[in-house]
C-alpha cells in the first residue's frame, strides 16, 4: 500500500475514523489499532513479509529483555552481539547474499576459473533496512543504559512496525517513539491540520516534481548514446527526483503521524541549501545519518582517537561504507558511500567538519559566497548520484565519460514546465526554510489566500495523478 494510492486513502480514512471517532481514546485500544493497522498496511504487500517482521520484533523484544535483565556487563555485551549478529546476518541473507555470490563468481572468473555458484531467488522484505536499524538501535540503547526495555509487547511491536515510517523511514529512535506509544494520544486540531498540509506538500513533491523529473531522468540515462548537456541535465533532475521522492515520502510520513498524534523524526532539512558536504549530511536523510553517527562513527572515532585526523578519516570512511552498503547490494553504492566519505577529508583536515553553517532565516537571498558554496555542494552531490543511480561501476564510468563528449547540445531539450515546478519547490522551501515544511502556512491570516493555495495544490496534484505521463507511484527508497 503506497501513501499516494487509492487503497491507502481508503485504509487511512477508515483507520482515522476508528482511531479518533468510533473507538474510545484509550491507550490500549489506540495501540492495538496502531499495531493492527501497521500489519494490515505491511501485509498488503505480502502476508509472508508480515510474518518476517513479526518474528523479527518478537525476537528483539526478548533480546532487549535479557540484555536489560543481565547484571553482568560482559554478558550483556555478549547477548547484544548475538542479537546484532542475528539481525545483520538476516539482513545480509535477504539483501547481500546474491551480491556476495555474484561478486565471488566475478572474482573466480577473473582468476581464470569457471564460476559455479548460482544466485538465489530471495524476495527482499520491504523496508527491511529501516526496521532492522530500528531494532538494532533499540538493542544498542538498552545495552548502553540509555533505554529501559519495553514491557508491553504491543507497544514494542507497534514501535517496530509503525506504519507511517515502516517502509521508507524515518528510522525513529526508540526514545522518541516508545514514550509516545506509552501515553494516550489526544486529538489536536493544530497538529492534525499541520499534518494534512505536510501530506499535501509531500504529494506535490512526489507527484508533480519527482514523477515528472523521472521522465527526464529515464530519457537521459535510458540510452548510452546520449552525452554532454543531456546527461548533466539528467543528473540535475535525478538529484531533484530523488530528493522530491524521498523527502516527499518523509513529509507524508510525518503528516500521517501528526494526524495520529505522533511526532516522528524530521528526515530532511532543505539539504540542497547546504554550505558544504558535512552540512548536507546533517540535512539529508537525517534519521540514517544520526543512526550512523551514534552507532558507527562515534564508536569508530573513539577506537581510532589515537590516530588523530587520520583516525577521523578512517571513521568517516567506515561510516560511509556502511551507509553505501545500507542502501543496497551493489558496488555502485559502496563507491557512492566512499566518495561521500572522501569529500569529508578536506573538512577534517581543515578542522571544519563540525562547524555548522546556516543562513539567517531573515535573509531574503544568500550572499554570493553562500550561493557559491550551495551550488558547489549541490554539484558534488549531483555528480555522485550518477554512481548511486548506475547499475554498475562500468555504466557509471561510461556516464561520467559521456558527459565530457563533444556535441554537448545534441538531443538537448529543456522541459520548461518541469523546470517551473522544480524551481517553485526550491523557492518555496527556501523562503520557508525556518518552518517545518513548504506548506507550513498556518500563520497566513488571509483565509481566502490560504485556501486558494490548498485548492491550487490539490488541483495540481489531481491533474498529474490523472493526466501525468509518468505515473511511477513507487518510492525510490522503498527498495532499500
Amino acid at each position, binding site marked *: 500500500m503506497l501513501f499516494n494510492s487509492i487503497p491507502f486513502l481508503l485504509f487511512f480514512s477508515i483507520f482515522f475514523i476508528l482511531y*479518533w*471517532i468510533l473507538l474510545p481514546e484509550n491507550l490500549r485500544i489506540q495501540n492495538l489499532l496502531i499495531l493492527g493497522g501497521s500489519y494490515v498496511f505491511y501485509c498488503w504487500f505480502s502476508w509472508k513479509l508480515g510474518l518476517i517482521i513479526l518474528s523479527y520484533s518478537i525476537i528483539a523484544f526478548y533480546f532487549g529483555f535479557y540484555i536489560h535483565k543481565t547484571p553482568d556487563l560482559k554478558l550483556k555485551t555478549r547477548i547484544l552481539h548475538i542479537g546484532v549478529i542475528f539481525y545483520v546476518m538476516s539482513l545480509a541473507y535477504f539483501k547481500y547474499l546474491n551480491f556476495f555470490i555474484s561478486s565471488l563468481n566475478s572474482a573466480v572468473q577473473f582468476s581464470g576459473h569457471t564460476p559455479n555458484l548460482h544466485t538465489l531467488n530471495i524476495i527482499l522484505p520491504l523496508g527491511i533496512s529501516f526496521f532492522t536499524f530500528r531494532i538494532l538501535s533499540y538493542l544498542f540503547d538498552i545495552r548502553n543504559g540509555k533505554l529501559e526495555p519495553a514491557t508491553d509487547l504491543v507497544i514494542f511491536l507497534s514501535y517496530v512496525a509503525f506504519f507511517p515510517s515502516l517502509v521508507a523511514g524515518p528510522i525513529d529512535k526508540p526514545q522518541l517513539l516508545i514514550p509516545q506509544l506509552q501515553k494516550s494520544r489526544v*486529538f489536536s*486540531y493544530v497538529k*492534525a*491540520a499541520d499534518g*494534512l498540509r505536510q501530506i499535501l506538500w509531500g504529494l506535490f513533491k512526489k507527484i508533480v516534481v519527482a514523477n515528472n523529473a523521472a521522465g527526464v531522468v529515464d530519457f537521459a540515462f535510458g540510452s548510452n548514446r546520449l552525452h554532454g548537456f543531456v546527461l548533466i541535465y539528467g543528473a540535475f533532475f535525478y538529484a531533484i527526483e530523488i530528493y522530491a521522492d524521498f523527502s516527499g515520502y518523509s513529509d507524508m510520513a510525518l503528516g500521517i503521524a501528526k494526524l495520529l498524534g505522533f511526532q516522528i523524526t524530521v528526515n530532511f532539512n532543505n539539504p540542497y541549501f547546504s554550505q558544504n558536504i558535512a552540512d548536507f549530511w546533517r540535512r539529508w536523510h537525517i534519521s540514517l545519518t544520526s543512526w550512523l553517527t551514534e552507532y558507527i562513527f562515534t564508536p569508530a572515532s573513539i577506537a581510532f582517537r589515537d590516530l588523530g585526523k587520520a583516525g577521523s578519516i578512517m571513521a568517516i570512511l567506515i561510516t560511509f561504507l556502511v551507509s553505501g552498503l545500507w542502501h543496497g547490494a551493489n558496488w555502485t553504492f559502496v563507491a557512492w558511500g566512499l566518495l561521500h566519505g572522501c569529500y569529508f577529508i578536506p573538512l577534517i583536515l581543515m578542522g571544519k567538519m563540525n562547524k555548522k553553517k546556516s543562513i539567517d532565516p531573515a535573509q531574503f537571498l544568500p550572499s554570493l559566497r553562500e550561493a557559491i558554496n550551495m551550488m558547489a555542494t549541490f554539484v558534488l552531490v549531483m555528480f555522485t548520484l550518477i554512481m548511486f543511480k548506475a547499475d554498475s561501476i562500468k555504466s557509471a564510468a561510461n556516464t561520467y565519460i559521456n558527459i565530457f563528449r563533444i556535441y554537448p547540445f545534441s538531443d538537448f531539450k529543456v522541459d520548461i514546465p518541469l523546470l517551473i515546478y522544480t524551481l517553485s519547490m526550491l523557492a518555496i522551501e527556501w523562503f520557508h526554510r525556518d518552518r517545518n515544511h513548504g506548506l507550513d502556512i498556518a500563520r497566513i491570516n488571509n483565509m481566502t489566500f490560504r*485556501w486558494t493555495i*490548498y*485548492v491550487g495544490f*490539490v*488541483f495540481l496534484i*489531481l*491533474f498529474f*495523478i*490523472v*493526466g501525468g505521463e509518468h505515473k511511477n507511484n513507487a518510492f525510490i527508497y522503498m527498495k532499500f
Partner: protein
Amino acid sequence: MKKLLVKISILIGIVAVPLLLCLFFLPDPKSRKGLDGALIDKHILLEKSKPATIILIGGSNAGMGFKTQIMKDSLKLPVINAAVSGWFGLKFIINDVKTYIKKNDLIVLCVPYTSFENTTDNDFIGNSLLVPVLFDVSPKAIINLDYPEFKRIAPFIAPYILAKIKQVFIKDEFDGLYRRDGFNQDGDFTAHYSLIRTLKLKPQPKCLGSEGLNSKVIPFLVNFKQYVIAKGATFVILPPSIQSASFNNQVFIINKIDSALKVNNLAFISPTLRYKFEDRYLYDFIYHLNSEGAELNTRLAITDLLKVKAVKKMKSDDTIQRQFHIHRVQ
C-alpha cells in the same frame, strides 16, 4: 475534530463540485464527432421507427457488416442498423436498445464471438469508450450502470474530466476514420468503402482447447429474450461475419458458443460456417467487412432472416406492408 472534518469536507467539496460539473455539463465535442456520437443518431433512428421494424444490434462488426438498403428492398420491411461499437460491451448494447423496442419488432443481435468468451470481460462489460457515452452522449444510460460496469469505467472517469477540460483550452479536432459522420442514414458504417486495406490481417490464434464461455452472457441474453417477448417482439442471434482463417483457428470455441446458445433456446439462426469470409471481403479487422463484404453478408442475412417465423409473419401482415410502402414513398 469536528472543525477538521468540516474543513476537509469543504476542501473536498471545493475540489469535487467543479469536477463533477465538468463531468456532467462540460460539452465533449470530440466524442460527439467520434464513434460515440453516432449513438445519438442511432437513438433518433430508433425513436422514429414504427412498430415491426428489423433492428440490427451489435458491435462495429454489425455497423460495418450490412447494407441496410438492400435488406429493406429485398425484405420489403423497415430495417435499422443500430450497431456502433463492441467496445461499449454487449451489456450496454442490449440495455441501450431496450427502451426502443416496439411490438412486432425483430431484434437481430450480431456480435463477435469474443463477446461470449471468458478471456476478457471487456466485450461484455465495456471499457473506456463507455465513459463519454455515459457522461455526454447518452447520460440516460447511467441508470442501467451496475457495480461491475462502474468498477470497470471508474479509472477512466478522472482522465475523461481532464480530457473535457483540455478541450476548452485546446481545440482538438477529431480526425479518425471511425467518426459519427461515417454512418449513412440507415445506420450503416460506410466511411471505409472507398479505402483499400494496406495491411495483412493477422488471424486469431488457434484455440488451445481450454477456452471457455463467459458465464454471465447466456443468462443475460435469456433475460433479454424474455423481455423482448414480453414486449410482443422477437429476438434472434445472427452469426457474425468473420475472417475465414480466424474461423478455422477458433472453431473449437465457436462450436462451444453455438452449443451453449442452442441449449438455452437462443440458437444462431444459421450455421456459423456460412459467415466465413475471405480476406478480400475484409477491411482492417477480422470482423470488419468492406463494401463487397457487407453486400455479401447482407444477402446471406436476408436468406437467413427469411426463414425466421417473425419475418414471415411481418411479410404476410398487410398492415405492416402497407405502412412500409407509405414510409418508402414518404
